[in-house]
């Protein structure tokens, strides 16, 4: 087991304005590992999905709620992200994780949240109990600094010039 080199905990109100706020916080923290832009974009997207689930689903019909994020960075460049709510919980996790399944079609939810989290991280674990809340744990190991993490970039000039996401990009 590699050593945890940095850790942060964050809690905020479950309101939609905080979706952007949570992405910015996670980006700033992950930036300490100097990730590739593509990796940062993937983590931001996965976090946005998990936080949006808390806001749209977990606390639906409740006047207020809190979302907790706990992050750890490991010496082997592994990023651990735990996102937790104390909302209504998920009745059927397997069903909820099926692509295109949504309980909020009226809000134009595409039902792709878990599919995106799964695709953009190395590991996804979901724990939930009714009326007590849901915990999502995602882990992703960032590529080594020498690797080219964005092989699909077609513009070779851009590729050579700037692949690393600086803190300004958060």
């Amino acid at each position, binding site marked *: 087991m590699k050593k945890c080199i940095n850790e942060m905990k964050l809690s905020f109100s479950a309101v939609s304005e905080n979706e952007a706020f949570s992405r910015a916080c996670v980006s700033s923290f992950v930036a300490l590992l100097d990730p590739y832009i593509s990796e940062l974009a993937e983590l931001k997207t996965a976090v946005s999905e998990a936080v949006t689930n808390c806001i749209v689903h977990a606390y639906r019909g409740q006047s207020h709620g809190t979302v907790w994020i706990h992050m750890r960075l490991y010496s082997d460049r592994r990023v651990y992200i735990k996102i937790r709510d104390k909302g209504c919980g998920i009745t059927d996790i397997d069903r909820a994780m099926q692509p295109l399944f949504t309980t909020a079609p009226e809000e134009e939810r595409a039902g*792709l949240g878990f599919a995106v989290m799964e695709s953009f991280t190395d590991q996804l674990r979901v724990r939930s109990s009714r009326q007590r809340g849901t915990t999502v744990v995602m882990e992703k190991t960032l590529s080594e600094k020498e690797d080219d993490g964005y092989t699909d970039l077609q513009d070779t000039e851009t590729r050579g010039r700037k692949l690393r996401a600086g803190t300004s990009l958060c």
Partner: protein
Amino acid sequence: MPVELKIVENKLTAYLSGDIDHHTAAAMRTEIDHALRQNNIKILTLDFSGVTFMDSSGIGLVMGRQKLAAELGGRCRVADPPAYISKVMKISGIGRLCEIVDTRTPVRAGVRRDGEITGGEEE
């Protein structure tokens, strides 16, 4: 504004900008739908070139506009999604529901891969 609208004859182009998430998508949706209903639009183009971030809320936005455009007798297409957004689009399979076009002129010949029209996609 997160969305700028341009109407030419029966074509509506919505230039989306900034981050698209559950919070911002709601305002974009209202504006686009208003313009769609007020005008006799046959082709709605959602221009993603100015979008800096998108999660699956953006997919919901496209699906919803495609549905409404079809109900009104038109269709919806997606233009110029940046590379990091194309990946979310690919996972969703939205390309099967509406056309994804690249309207940008290649800067230099030979930079793009053969037959690649979506721009910045990989596999």
